[in-house]
């Protein structure tokens, strides 16, 4: 039996493709801290100490292996002048894109972190988390990829047209975004983030074909990851990644977020010993799970990807929906502790691997 580890030891070990004491799990409950503190979602995200307190309480409650410093995706668009729309039952959403005419890209300059109140709140949250955890619990920062950020900057439709018809403007925008995203990721690391989740749904094979990814999102990710001084997980936010799995591994990422619509076992076969896997519980159906269904889903993931380490159990989108009851999260946590203890005897003795 492997001795009990701290969350940090557990994550470092599994990312080294060795089995830790048990399968680590990230619940990534970005919004649920508001419920813990009895605040509305808008109030919760208005102060950095709210988020630090909320995430620490959630970690103590469910025992997952990280603190998640993610607020909401629209925060980065807000720094570029975008609108954020709050609601009471879900993540704040990006409103109308700040760039209505793509020709304006030629006159655009990246925002400075120090001029962006929302980003400064995140940095303060990370600092407070780091002071509390003393390095025992990994703190996960987040950056939207420069290649996916334009969906919120100019709108999805305009971005697809830019990708296909205006490479000049695309390259100009990616250059600006890369400067911003590198600065943003580095600021989070300097504040105390131990790892960065690089959300890049547009690069997924759900959104663009592999050939286009090789020309665009892939070189962008390679340039970005080389400039981030921490372990990076590339998360396709429910998008598919199997057709580009070799390229994802070649970006230098430590982990890939796997969609629930893809087979975790297939990923494991390709990624074993090369790149870690994160996933792939279905966050949408999760709101209707019984404790027994949660346990079955956890067992299925561990059976497919747990052997040998290199696996962190999580949802498939990088955010647990507000509608998921605590009862289900407790059941996931309990199942991860029960069925995730290495050497995963229940799998090896059952002849399932």
């Amino acid at each position: 039996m492997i001795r009990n580890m701290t969350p940090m030891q557990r994550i470092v070990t599994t990312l080294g493709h060795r089995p830790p004491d048990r399968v680590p799990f990230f619940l990534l409950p970005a919004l649920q801290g508001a419920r813990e503190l009895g605040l509305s979602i808008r109030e919760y995200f208005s102060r950095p100490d709210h988020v630090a307190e909320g995430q620490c309480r959630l970690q103590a409650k469910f025992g997952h292996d990280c603190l998640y410093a993610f607020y909401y995706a629209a925060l980065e668009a807000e720094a570029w002048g975008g609108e954020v729309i709050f609601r009471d039952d879900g993540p704040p959403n990006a409103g109308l894109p700040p760039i209505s005419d793509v020709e304006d890209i030629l006159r655009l300059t990246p925002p400075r972190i120090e001029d962006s109140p929302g980003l400064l709140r995140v940095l303060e949250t990370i600092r407070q988390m780091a002071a509390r955890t003393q390095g025992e619990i990994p703190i996960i920062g987040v950056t939207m990829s420069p290649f996916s950020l334009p969906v919120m900057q100019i709108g999805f439709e305009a971005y697809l047209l830019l990708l296909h018809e205006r490479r000049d403007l695309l390259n100009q925008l990616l250059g600006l975004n890369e400067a911003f995203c590198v600065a943003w990721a580095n600021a989070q690391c300097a504040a105390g983030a131990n790892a960065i989740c690089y959300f890049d749904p547009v690069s997924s094979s759900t959104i663009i074909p592999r050939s286009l990814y090789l020309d665009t999102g892939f070189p962008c990710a390679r340039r970005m990851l080389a400039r981030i001084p921490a372990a990076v997980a590339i998360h396709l936010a429910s998008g598919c990644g199997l057709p580009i799995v070799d390229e994802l591994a070649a970006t230098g990422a430590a982990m890939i977020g796997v969609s629930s619509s893809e087979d975790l076992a297939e990923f494991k076969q390709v990624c074993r010993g090369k790149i870690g896997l994160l996933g792939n519980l279905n966050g949408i159906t999760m709101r209707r799970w019984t404790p027994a269904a949660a346990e079955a889903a956890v067992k299925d993931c561990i059976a497919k990807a747990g052997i040998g380490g290199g696996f962190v159990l999580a949802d498939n989108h990088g955010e647990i929906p507000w509608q998921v009851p605590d009862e289900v999260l407790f059941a996931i946590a309990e199942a991860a502790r029960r069925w995730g203890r290495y050497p995963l005897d229940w799998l090896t003795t059952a002849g399932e691997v």
Partner: protein
Amino acid sequence: MLARLDEFERALLALDRVRVSELLDAVAASQTPLLAVESLIRPALERIGKLWEDNRCALSQVYMSGRLCEEQVDALLGPAATTTRVAPGNARLALTVLEDYHLLGKQIVRTVLRAAGWPVLDYERQTVAGLVTRTCADEIDILMISTLMLPSALQVREVTTQLREQSPRTRVVVGGAPFRFDPELWKEVGADAMGTNAAEAVAIVEGLAGGAP
């Protein structure tokens, strides 16, 4: 014809505008423009929609090929505003995005319906109250709702509840990521049907409206 359809599909996926136009023009010249739409555009978009559903092509290809087809339909049959075609059963169609600002899914469905040659009212982004009001005022038979976020998808329940009382004729079709990730969700929110890809909109409309016109 099958070989021509295969080639047409390949040309669409490769965004080869010239070849797409050549293949359509050949059918339109030897038969009719309408047949070109029905024998090439519609089945090709259905195939591409299925490919996307099976993770064998990308959303960008679905969107760009739909745009290409919409241009071709306008060239063959006349612009949307002047089309004399009607949807199956003379049904009045409308589509919208509920609450979200992500309009892409709705745009693709609109393109597919236009490519089928059917008029459709585009309500753009709507709240529950605004959507119910417009649907009733326009006497819509089939309302297609696209959503991206789970909270918006759950709001469809409010739309269907109000429409049952105020416009019982209206059938509601839903689509978007939450419905694809949870195949039971469309029933939970009281919809009449769910599309797993945009191209299914054509067959769903035919099914709900009682067959081809």
